[in-house]
Structures are given as C-alpha cells and as structure tokens.
C-alpha cells in the first residue's frame, strides 16, 4: 500500500517536472538544433529563404523516392575567410572585456561599502542599486544619448566652463558604448559581489589587523581571495551577454563600432541571409559555451552553499 502511494507520488513528481522540461526542450533546446541545421543550408529566394536540408526526390520512372540530404559548410568558410566577421568577433570580445573591467572597478567598492554598512541600511542601499534595473533598458540607453551628443549635457557643461569652445561629441564612438554598457550592466556586477562580501566574516580582518597586517594588505590577502566567487559570477554575468549585445552599439556606437550582435542582425534583417545569420549565431555560441558552463558551475555551487 505504502509502496503504491510512493509510486503515485513519484509519478506525480514526474508529471510536474515534465511540464517545464518539455517547454524548455521545445522552445530552448530544439531551436538551437534548427539554427545549426539552417547554418548548413544555402540561402535562396524562397519563403522561408533557405534551401531545405532534407529532401525527398521522387523518381517517377523507377517509382522510387530517394532521400537527399544536403549539407554545406560554405557559410562557415565565409565567416573564417572574411575579415569583417573576424574583426566583429574580436571587437565584441574587446568591448565586453572593457565593460566587465569597468563594472568591476566601479561595482566592487560599491558592493564593499554596502556590505560594510550598518545591517539595517544594507537593504535600502542595495535596493537603490537594483532599482534602475527595473526601469527600461532602452530608456536608460536613451538617457545617455541626450547626455553625450553634441550640444548635449556634457558638451554644454564643457563649453560653459570654457574647457572647450568647439562642439564636442562623445556619442557615436566606442567610448559611448563603454559608458552605456557599464551603466546597464553595473547592477549585475554589484549583486553577486555583495552576496559574497556580505557573508565575509569581519573577525578575519580583525585577526589580520591584530597580527599587524596593514589594511591594504589585509584586503589583498583576505578579502579579495574570499570574494573571488562573487567576482567570477559577476564578471561572467556581465561578460557573456555583453559579447552579443546589440541595442547599445546600435544606438550609442558609430557606424564603425563593429559588434557581432549587429552583424547577425544585419545579415538577418537587411540581407535576409538566414543561413549566414545562423552560422554567426552558432559561432558565437561555440565561443560562449565555456564561459556559460563556468557560470553554471559557479551558480550551482552558490545555490548549494545557500542550503
């Protein structure tokens, strides 16, 4: 009887897990397989604009049907052979790295200061960091256009103080992209950093001080190594989406701010070359597989530690 009940219980669990499981398989995993398949296809003028990979060829005379599978690697060869794509990948990595470092330099002192504040003040201070994340990403990028453009806020300020006399435009440059992306991703960095710094035992630092360790050295030898999991999680949380970023370079960057997300977008929407866009996506995904797996590992360990 108990065995039967347990079996029903397990069966119920299976049904419960199956719903989100199937959803994710269908709408998250299968799409990648399709993207991979189409990246091996050929573009053609049709609806949808690619050649089918698998085709049944009907031979009327012999009354047989043949299964034809066409795979071509030309899209990938094009990615490897064209400087545009390689430059876009390299530039994306560069911009993502600069963004990550900027977020770390700005976010670490913030997270540290909040973690050192009075316990009753930590919640509201942290809330102030997260709050901008709730307002639209697009709106926050838009806010910077008004600040950075010629005759914008920064320009007016510089002219008013007499530092420059000519109109000065930061907008449509790599600098604007760095500022905009750091601005948008900063909360993602502060959040995991704060989570590890808050758990840090302050008596460790006191012990270091008692033993005659200078504050800076104590920070470098005690605080920094212990907050490494937060640094890794935050950096990955900023770096991975930054590599494929589209909106910020499109709105704040110049025409020569080449990023892979923009290339993919243009291949898809402007050139209507779905196979090449798919190949760009797969190449980007292969590049991101290692960081994503490291992120999952860190994320999993942190959830376990919460137990």
């Amino acid at each position, binding site marked *: 009887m108990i065995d039967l009940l347990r079996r029903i*219980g397990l069966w*119920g*669990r*299976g049904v*419960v*897990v199956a*719903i*989100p499981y199937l959803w*994710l*398989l269908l*709408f*998250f995993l*299968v*799409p990648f397989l*399709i*993207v991979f398949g189409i990246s091996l296809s050929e573009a053609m003028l049709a609806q*949808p604009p690619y050649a089918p990979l698998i085709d049944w060829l009907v031979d009327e005379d012999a009354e047989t049907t043949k299964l034809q599978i066409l795979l071509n690697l030309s899209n990938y060869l094009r990615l490897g052979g064209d400087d545009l794509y390689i430059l876009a990948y390299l530039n994306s990595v560069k911009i993502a790295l600069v963004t990550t470092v900027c977020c770390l330099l700005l*976010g670490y*002192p*913030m997270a*540290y*200061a909040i973690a050192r504040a009075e316990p009753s003040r930590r919640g509201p201070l942290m*809330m102030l960091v997260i*709050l*901008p994340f709730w*307002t*639209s*990403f*697009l*709106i926050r990028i*838009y*806010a910077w256009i*008004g600040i950075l453009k010629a*005759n*914008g*806020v920064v320009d*007016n300020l510089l002219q008013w103080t007499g530092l420059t006399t000519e109109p000065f435009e930061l907008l449509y440059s790599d600098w604007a992209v760095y500022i905009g992306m750091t*601005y948008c991703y*900063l909360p993602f960095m*502060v959040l995991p950093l704060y989570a590890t710094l808050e758990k840090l035992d302050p008596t460790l630092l006191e012990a270091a001080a008692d033993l005659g360790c200078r504050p800076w050295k104590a920070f470098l030898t005690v605080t920094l190594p212990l907050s490494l999991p937060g640094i890794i999680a935050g950096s990955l*949380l900023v770096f*991975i*989406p930054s590599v*494929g970023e*589209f*909106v910020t370079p*499109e*709105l704040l960057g110049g025409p020569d701010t080449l990023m892979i997300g923009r290339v*993919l977008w243009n291949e*898809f929407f402007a050139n209507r070359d*779905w196979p090449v866009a*798919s190949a760009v*996506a797969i190449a980007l995904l292969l590049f991101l597989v290692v960081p*994503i797996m490291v*992120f*999952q590992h860190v*994320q*999993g360990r942190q*959830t376990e530690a*919460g137990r």
Partner: protein
Amino acid sequence: MKQMGKLAWALWFGYAFLYVPIALLIFYSFNESRLVTVWGGFSTKWYAELLQNDQLLGAAWLSLKVAAMSATASVVLGTVAGLALARFGRFRGRTLFGGMITAPLVMPEVITGLSLLLLFVALEQAIGWPDGRGMTTITIAHTTFTMAYVAVIIQSRLVSLDESLEEAAMDLGARPAKVFFVITLPIIAPAIVSGWLLAFTLSLDDVVVASFVSGPGSTTLPMVIFSSVKFGISPQINALATLMVVVVATGIFIASLVMARQDRQRKRDEQMAVQGG
C-alpha cells in the same frame, strides 16, 4: 575610518552614475523646446502630444497584454521548475534541466530571438502552427526567457527555507499536492510576486527578441521606441520614459510596503505562537 570615507565617496559616485541620467531625462521631459537638451521653459505639452499618439498607445497596449500573459505563464512554469530543482533531489535529466534553466539568463538576446524565430518558421512549415507571427509568438518567446529568472528566484527561496514544515505536514498525512498548496505556496508567495513583477518588467523591456518573432501589425512599445530613438532624441520619448519610470517606482514602492507589512504580521504571529505555547 579614513578608508570608509573613501568608500562612501565611491558609493555616492556609483549612485550618481546610476541616477543622474534618469533625473536629467525626467527634467528635460518638461522642456518647452523641441531641442531636448536646450532649456526653453516649462511645459507639459509633450505629455499631451503623447496621449494623442495612437501608434504609440496601441503598441503600449499590446506590450502590456503580452507582458501580463507571459509573466503569468512564466510564474507557473518557473515555480514548478524551481520546486523541482530545489526539492526533487537528483532526478533523471537534472543536469540538462538545470542547464536549460540557467543558460537563458546569460544567453545573448540576438541568439534567443533568431533561434525562436527559426523554430516558429519550421513549426509552421511542418504542422501549420503558429499561423503567422504576432502576439502568440512574442508571448511564447518572452515566457521562455523570463521563466528562467522566476525559477532561479523560487529555487533560491526554497533552498534557504527549512524543509521541516513540509516534512511535518507529510508526516501528518498530507498529500504532496496539498502540502504544496497549503504550506509551500503561502511561504514562497513573496518570491512568486517578485518573480511575476520581474518577468513583467523584462517582457515590457525587450526589443531584440520581440523584433525577431513579431509579425507585421504586431509592434510592441520597445520596438516603437527603438525605431524612433534611432533617428535621434525627441521630447515625446522623454515624456514617455518619465511616465514609465513613475509607474515602475510607484509599483515597487507599493510592493515593498505590502511586503514589509506582511513581514511584520508574520513576525507578530510567530511571537504570539511562541508566547501561546
């Protein structure tokens, strides 16, 4: 404590960096001049113009519908997924499941958008569904990437939660379904509310995925904003942004008030229980 002084400066600099752009945006929405950053006197005319912009209002209505539907769906799916990850131990395929939950959190939007569009096209060719692209496909796409956030929120709430309450209920003979609805659900209710709000916000915010999976005639609000911002800044967008910031701020303020009150209520109840026993 000299170091703390420097830290405080870093903190305030960070807050200024986060808030000054939003403050400027709001300030210039009351500007009379069409040149957004040149002050021409106080005016609310851009708000009046905004309310007559039918294209924008239609897009806003569509976005709100999509956000409400996808947030609701992703709360259901995400809660179940979070429960499975936190409570079901090691079931078959757990690694893949965990991977599929966390990967959407960092997946670049262009990849998510492209892959979902190609799926919808392939499905339409194979089984005739979905018939064209529009509200349904945007809702499905948003549900898929927002449920990951909900699942992570629910999972971390459940992991930090003592399992003994649920075990006690089981020992007293309650069925798993009853335990979930009577014990677990009320405890994780605040996490579910924040998950819903987050999913709603993320859906309302998305421009990239929606651009891929939307069809003609189904333009969401972020898509309208994006295409008008590409041609430069306009005071109407400032007014719209101000309204959005005000709505979000009010929503969060109310939500935190309600949660604080519930928290106090729970503490009082617990104290009563201790004193009573």
